[in-house]
């Protein structure tokens, strides 16, 4: 299983004031808050940790069918930075999800996978976020067709091989990401 989450950093700056009293307490664990407040770039760290949680939540939501707003139950661990990416994991109950995040100029994107899935096998494509993105994607693509499966989850159909790929889509602000196995 996979989940992804994209955050347009310019939009996040306008939409959310994470410095608001009690904001961090409600959604981040003590370790995560420490991570944010001691970071050289707390704005970036807030949204990186948030996107890690959101991408893992997507997997849990797909597996359980339950919707909950419980970000503190998703705990970010083992965070490793490079210049433009992050690896880490998110713990939820007994489950551990592996995460890889990409840091670009004006957006960040996190992908979460269940332990049996390899992050390296995932393809991620970035697009401009538009309301008719499904139509535009399908018109531009020769090989892949974006559709929903019988559970209402997105999937990519390879029109040549007739194989289906598990897909996760996220959009925010100007950005859209389609991740698939």
């Amino acid at each position, binding site marked *: 299983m996979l989940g992804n989450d994209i955050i347009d950093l310019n939009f996040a700056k306008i*939409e*959310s004031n994470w410095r608001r009293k009690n*904001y961090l307490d*409600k959604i981040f664990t003590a370790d995560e808050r420490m991570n944010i407040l001691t970071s050289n770039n707390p704005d970036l760290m807030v949204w990186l940790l948030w996107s890690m949680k*959101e991408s893992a939540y997507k997997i849990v939501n797909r597996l359980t069918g339950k919707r*909950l707003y419980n970000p503190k*139950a998703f705990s970010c661990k083992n965070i490793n930075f490079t210049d433009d990416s992050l690896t880490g994991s998110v713990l939820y109950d007994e489950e551990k999800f592996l995460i890889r995040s990409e840091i670009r100029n004006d957006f960040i994107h996190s992908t979460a996978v269940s332990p049996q899935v390899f992050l390296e096998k995932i393809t991620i494509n970035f697009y401009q976020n538009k309301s008719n993105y499904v139509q535009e994607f399908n018109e531009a693509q020769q090989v892949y067709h974006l559709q929903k499966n019988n559970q209402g989850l997105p999937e990519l159909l390879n029109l040549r091989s007739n194989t289906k790929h598990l897909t996760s889509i996220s959009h925010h602000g100007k950005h859209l990401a389609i991740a698939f196995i």
Partner: protein
Amino acid sequence: MDKTQIIKELAKIVTPYTEEKSALENIGEDTDFITDLKINSANLVDIVLDIEEKFNIAIDNDSMAKMLTVKATVEIIETKLNAG
């Protein structure tokens, strides 16, 4: 405060976080913050904080976990107000 008044206050609270004007005008128990009002999940916490301030109640993590719809949120506010 009765249910109708709570929903009215809730509508005021969520207004800055939604651009779905018609869904907001028709807000009711069945309204879903994310699917109907298209509220960003990072703003749901603002709504929780606004509710805490407006109604002078404390919302614990278990209650917050359910606050995805107007119905669940009104129930939590009512319970906390009665307990206080």
